[in-house]
């Protein structure tokens, strides 16, 4: 592989890591509260409001049913509004985040729903309010699942970021298509695949280790 290609590879790795990390973080910050809202407003939840629950569910399902490549293009006006441009790595972070947030909200919802209702009842019986229940019961008890779900989201984001080349965001997927596929640079294709495997395995390994340390359920 020529030094120029190698430099391109390094830049692509950085772009992929940046897109994944930034949109992962954003999806965590917005997705977890969304997941909590879904659990809290459902029937028998700590802030039951079926109307809100259905509305939230519909919006989340709406975003999740649009294929990412279409979301990428459809969100261009929104991206321009937020980042100022619709092209480049930073511009790709907007649609990636918007796609990952509802995805992660659903994953967080599943983990939060698995928290034993008896624990919520115990916290209420102690005189705890909703905030206590979220802070002392729901989040800490669901934490292993929340972290495991975040790992899954990050891995999914690495895959999705490969499509971001369509709006000039660069990244490993873009490199593989333009050099590995269109210019028959097999070495680039192989290198990209190896780097992706290492990235995914690394994220999964760190995630699994973290879950094992957090899980006290024995």
């Amino acid at each position: 592989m020529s030094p120029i290609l190698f430099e391109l590879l390094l830049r692509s790795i950085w772009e992929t890591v940046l897109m994944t990390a930034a949109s992962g973080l954003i999806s965590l910050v917005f997705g977890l509260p969304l997941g909590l809202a879904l659990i809290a407003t459902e029937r028998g939840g700590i802030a039951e409001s079926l109307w809100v629950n259905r509305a939230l569910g519909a919006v989340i399902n709406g975003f999740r049913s649009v294929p990412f490549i279409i979301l990428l293009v459809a969100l261009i006006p929104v991206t321009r509004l937020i980042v100022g441009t619709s092209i480049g790595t930073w511009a790709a972070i907007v649609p990636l985040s918007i796609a990952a947030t509802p995805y992660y909200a659903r994953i967080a919802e599943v983990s939060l729903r698995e928290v034993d209702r008896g624990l919520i009842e115990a916290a209420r019986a102690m005189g705890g309010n909703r905030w206590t229940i979220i802070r002392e019961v729901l989040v800490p008890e669901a934490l292993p699942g929340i972290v495991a779900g975040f790992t899954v989201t990050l891995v999914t984001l690495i895959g999705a970021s490969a499509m971001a080349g369509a709006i000039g965001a660069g990244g490993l997927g873009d490199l593989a298509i333009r050099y590995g596929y269109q210019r028959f640079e097999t070495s680039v294709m192989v290198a990209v695949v190896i780097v992706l495997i290492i990235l995914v395995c690394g994220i999964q390994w760190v995630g699994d280790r973290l879950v094992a340390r957090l899980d006290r359920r024995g």
Partner: protein
Amino acid sequence: MNQHIKASGDTADPTHARTEASQDVVRLVDLKRRFGVTAALDGISLTVRKGEILGIIGRSGAGKSTLIRCLNGLERPDSGEVFIEGREISRLGERDLQPLRRRIGMIFQHFNLLSAKTVEDNVALPLKIEGRPKAERLARAAELLDLVGLSEKARAYPASLSGGQKQRVGIARALAARPALLLSDEATSALDPETTRSILALLRDINRQLGLTILLITHEMEVIRSIADRVAVIDAGRIVEQGPVWSVFADPRSDITRSLLGAIRPQLPAELAARLLPAAGAQTILRVDVAGEAASGPLLSDLAVAVPGSFRLVHGGIDHIQQQPVGTLFLSVPGSDANHLADIIAFLKARQARVEVLGHVANPV
């Protein structure tokens, strides 16, 4: 000496209610709650006096869980009143219930300990909710873990504890905020018999040492027998019987109570019961229930002296509940002489025993 109060919706005698109202930690008046077409609570009225242990027993689905949850506002009655330390709470909003719930500790069948917190953090949680400083919380947790005998487990996580240890942590946690009332929701139902005994002994100690009022629900008469002062039997959302434990055990009035008592009261041996015939035979089998004075005197030797002729004790014995002797004896009396049998029954009835002719057998052994 009728200690029972029949299920008519009225509480204990009105004079008690008037003179000692301030001593009642809990007073329920005509509580009703429906779930769809089934009435979980169908007019429950009862009081729990300061310092006593009241046991509520019933089959699953009798309304026990709904009842206990009405006491701390986890469940709301459709109608009726719930007084906790004299204050009506059934219409309070969630925000007003929160400080009240800190006055009421609760322990659960499945312990409900937080798996992500250490034992001491679990115990200290009610104080954290109250907004107490960390040093005070940990000091109180240490004190309570010492009380329940789990000091060395303070830094352990609940997953590493046995069922009995988990319930001890649950009890310590329930006591953390110095409650006026402890609610126990089937606290020993998930435990083996030996662990059950040690948990009940702990609750008894806490009741005596701290003067803590306890209301417990259970489906096991053994639990009632070993720690309750008074018992209320609930069925289909109604109290069918209530009174001091020994008196309800000695003289159960309802079929439900009798069937709940079934396992722990002496029964005619199955082999003998199978041979019982309704028609007269060589031997008549009597069931004799005695309690209090009747059971403490030399009943059988008096009987032997007063009524000449033979009888045989086939099964049974005297048990002590709340320091009161309560017993069931199965006697076999020769059936050839009807007068002899009548004399025996008359003598026993004169001694306040309840006598029932179960049937006849050819041979009692």
